[in-house]
């Protein structure tokens, strides 16, 4: 038994490419798009970024940290809330995305308003319904904190916080949020097997879903209209707001399906609490319009058994190692220290 365990570990280790001990991913995956050469990973910068990620001092009244809406135990998203809430219990306008595999993404937010991971944090920092602060306020607080001066000195050689250093450190931590160890991944490696139900679900997935939720990242990260009727209380037209191009109306960024078991509710406005509701949308809820994604223009027909099997497959994308990884969770010394 122990021998098998050792064999398993060896196979897993060989399957992962470890060009960088701080950042590894399966050999078969595409190359990341993040420009690491402009922000090479170091353990100290990652530690600084991690301290920042879990620190509620990033918000104006010290109540909201990044982890408030991106909790590790829910695959770094905000469970239970259709629309995230921030400072002073304000309710925002969108569901918080699950953070993982960010090095493979070239645009961020549901409408791609942010074009680089390094500047993504500026948005929640300054939003009056999220953290209600600013990068300038944060940098002033970091400069005044002995704890952070120590962390900056370890990371950057001197203790001075700047906007650039703060943002790049946060990026470094976020880049380490790699999820590649779900049952699905073990099956691809040959070290595990799908049940008959999961296998059928995988077959259905490849037929109906793979065009946009492309393996192995389970998203092509492109903007698409998946036929959701607009919510008249939100009137959110997605990417249109960013490009001002009418053909981008109703287009939102395709999210990853990895860890979808943990990241409910679903869609940019969290309108679906259960995966069954998501599948029902795709089989009978699609609003046909000019911008509808091409793969969705022919009807998707699934029997009740098909739907159950498809969900069984989606559950094989859950990566328990990722959500319980202590290295990604709150650091031991958090807040408390000044």
């Amino acid at each position, binding site marked *: 038994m122990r021998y098998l365990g050792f064999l398993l570990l060896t196979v897993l280790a060989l399957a992962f490419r470890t060009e960088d001990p701080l950042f590894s991913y399966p050999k078969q995956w595409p190359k990341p798009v993040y420009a690491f050469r402009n922000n090479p990973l170091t353990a100290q910068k990652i530690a600084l970024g991690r301290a920042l990620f879990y620190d509620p001092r990033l918000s104006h009244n010290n109540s909201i940290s990044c982890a408030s809406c991106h909790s590790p135990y829910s695959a770094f998203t905000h469970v239970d809330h259709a629309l995230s809430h921030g400072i002073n219990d304000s309710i925002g306008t969108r569901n918080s995305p699950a953070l993982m595999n960010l090095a493979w993404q070239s645009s961020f937010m549901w409408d791609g308003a*942010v074009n*680089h991971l390094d500047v993504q944090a*500026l*948005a929640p920092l*300054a939003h009056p319904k999220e953290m209600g602060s600013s*990068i300038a306020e944060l940098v002033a607080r970091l400069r005044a904190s002995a704890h952070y001066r120590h962390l900056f000195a370890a990371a950057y050689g001197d203790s001075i916080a700047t906007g650039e250093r703060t*943002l790049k450190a946060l*990026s470094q931590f976020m880049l380490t949020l790699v999820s590649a160890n779900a049952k699905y991944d073990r099956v691809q490696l040959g070290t595990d097997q799908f049940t008959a139900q999961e296998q059928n679900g995988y077959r259905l997935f490849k037929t109906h879903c793979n065009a946009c939720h492309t393996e192995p990242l389970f998203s092509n990260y492109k903007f698409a209209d998946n036929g959701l009727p607009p919510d008249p209380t939100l009137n959110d037209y997605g990417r249109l707001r960013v490009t001002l191009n009418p053909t981008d109306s109703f287009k939102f960024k395709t999210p990853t399906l990895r860890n979808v078991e943990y990241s409910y509710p679903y869609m940019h406005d969290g309108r679906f609490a259960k995966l069954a509701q998501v599948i029902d949308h795709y089989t009978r809820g699609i609003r046909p319009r000019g911008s509808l994604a091409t793969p969705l223009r022919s009807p998707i027909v699934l029997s009740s058994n098909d739907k159950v099997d498809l969900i069984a497959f989606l559950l094989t994308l859950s990566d328990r190692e990722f959500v319980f990884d202590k290295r990604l969770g709150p650091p031991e010394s958090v807040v408390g220290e000044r």
Partner: protein
Amino acid sequence: MRSGCTRRTLCCIAFALLLSKGAIIAQPDNGKVTFSFLFDRAPLKLDSMYRIGNDSFRVSTLKLYISALRVLDRAKRTLYTEQESFHLIDLSDPNSNTLVVPAALLQRGAWISFCLGVDSVTNVSGAMGGDLDPTKGMYWTWQSGYINVKLEGSSSRCHSRKHEFQFHLGGYAAPFNAMQVVMLPLGGTAHEDIRLDVSALLQEIDLAAQPNILSPGTPAVELSARVAQLFYH
């Protein structure tokens, strides 16, 4: 006169010649290019109240990026390209309006070229430091991208809240790339002053109809072009 005297005289003449040459060498080899902002032909003072005709104007903030500084010869061939060329000119910081350029290049007939704003490659390259640090208040948070020109204040011509106008001009993605290239002839002195009269700009804008431009789009591009055209030397 004996040969000794002649030698001394010759030495004196030679020394004098050397000194005069030395006087040129002793000059600092750094020239200055400064950006000066005027209101109705006088230096613009932030928060001062100005009157033109029946209208009043006050400028509370003026910040803009100058980048990609180059000096070109008469035939517009590049003589000098400044490296890491990004400068945040902030009217509230009197030290921020001076750029250093090798004085030898500032010849009459030559040209100076610069960009008003930040180029699109830098706009998609993430967090930067120095004058480009996001703590400078010139980077949008809700959408990625630099604010090339920030002009804020108030005017009796605005019907907005507190009669305020706010122009945050930016945008890097086609068709709303707001960055402008400016080219001006040089006067040939070691200190070149590039000027912009803000009153000319404010009088051209229909402040009643459009007191705010706060996002990328056609208005931002058009107003950026007008700002660029108003630089003179």
